[in-house]
């Protein structure tokens, strides 16, 4: 979107919400927040609020979609109509369909699909309030929900968005920065596999800027990774406290 003269970074290097270029927004994470799914999680990142739920592994219907040697993940990223500034129409938009696909690819790598032949695993991501970075925050919530459900995984998947705003490479864009900045690049890593599982670019970056952005993203993701691990351990901390 054309920058309507809004200064996104001021002379002190502070962004529109007071953050420095490499600061994440405040993050809140919780698992087991929904009762009827096999695993669930809730993530808040700044004003972005997202629920994720996992069902499975279970018999896949229709049968002909099942694979003989592994599970099939069905992933749906969806935004509530009131989650965005201008009310979104009901139903799946093309953007939601695309994001569902790239998120699914990231999860397919991390989950041991071979452990559940002919089964299906449903992953549902629901954005309740959107303020930038919803696909990566949604992916983080999905990752937590899968772990909460006890699905076998190689690693937790962790994502965050980097971008270019007022000529600077910054971490974790909020909605305004995404709208009026020059580039937005969501990325997801598996720290254990030291690999990238999701990568997209919206906007324009030089190759040097891209390399700088990847480095910054990795730093941000590692911080979020620690928070995800804490969140999972916290749920079961009462087991440890019962030591006699």
């Amino acid at each position, binding site marked *: 979107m054309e920058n309507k003269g809004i200064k996104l970074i001021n002379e002190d290097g502070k962004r529109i919400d007071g953050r420095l270029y490499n600061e994440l927004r405040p993050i809140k994470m919780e698992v087991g927040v929904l009762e009827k799914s096999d695993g669930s999680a809730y993530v808040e990142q700044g004003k972005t609020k997202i629920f994720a739920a996992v069902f499975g592994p279970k*018999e896949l219907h229709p049968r002909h979609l099942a694979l003989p040697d592994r599970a099939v993940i069905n992933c749906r990223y969806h935004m509530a109509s009131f989650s965005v500034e201008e009310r979104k129409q009901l139903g799946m938009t093309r953007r939601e369909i695309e994001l569902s696909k790239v998120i699914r690819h990231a999860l397919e790598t991390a989950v041991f699909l071979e452990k559940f032949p002919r089964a299906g695993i449903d992953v549902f991501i629901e954005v309740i309030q959107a303020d930038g970075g919803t696909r990566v925050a949604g992916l983080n919530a999905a990752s937590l929900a899968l772990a909460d459900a*006890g699905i076998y995984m190689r690693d937790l998947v962790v994502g965050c968005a980097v971008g270019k705003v007022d000529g600077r490479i910054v971490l974790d864009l909020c909605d305004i920065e995404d709208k009026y900045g020059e580039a937005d690049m969501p990325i997801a890593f598996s720290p254990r596999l030291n690999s990238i599982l999701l990568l997209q670019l919206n906007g324009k970056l030089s190759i040097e800027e891209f390399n700088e952005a990847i480095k910054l993203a990795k730093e941000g993701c590692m911080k979020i990774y620690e928070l995800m691990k804490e969140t999972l351990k916290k749920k079961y901390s009462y*087991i440890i406290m019962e030591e006699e």
Partner: protein
Amino acid sequence: MSPIYFNEREIVLPGQLLAEGKFISGEGTYIIGDKVYSSQIGLAKYKDGEISVIPLKGPYIPKKDDVVIGIIIDIKPNMIDIDLGGGFRALLKISKRSEIKNLNIGDVIIGKIMYSGLKGIILNHEEGFKKIDKGLIIKIIPTKIPRIIGRKGSMINLLKKETGCEIFIGRNGLIVINGPSPNNEFAVASAIRMIEKEAHTAGLTDRISNFLKKWSEKYGK
């Protein structure tokens, strides 16, 4: 000995490095080269050269010889379709018409898995198969079933003794409680939910014992 990177009462997470060296990768773990990693949230264990992870929560994986509880969802000329829940279906072969006379869609049955693999799940129709006529049916996380049974049946026997209830347990997480009165059945259900929540904590058997004693005092048997 090769290094082990966890201790007994530590919650391990998917992707966490558990050990390095000559180890066997057991349930809930995977191995790359000589590094053993966890694939679930749980408690890691080392025994006889094998590293495994006891998951705190996880799907039921049907295995041969498992006793399971299910619901009849279809009756065909030679076969009965049984829903085991958790996304799994089992089949029961019928050899004699007389076997199915008393069976109807919606009935609860208990049976033993004869085969579980690429062809599906097949229950043994000869031995161990029974219809459960009445009782309170509840569902818990399948990975907690061993704790409900207890070492050599110690926990389930405690529940049966203190409440006078018959208790049918399916490895797939379904349990049917049949008692002299609904109060007895609720007592067992409450105790089971306590065990499900506190399965890995110390002193659980004593707490359940106390809970049941208090209940006995209040309601009599």
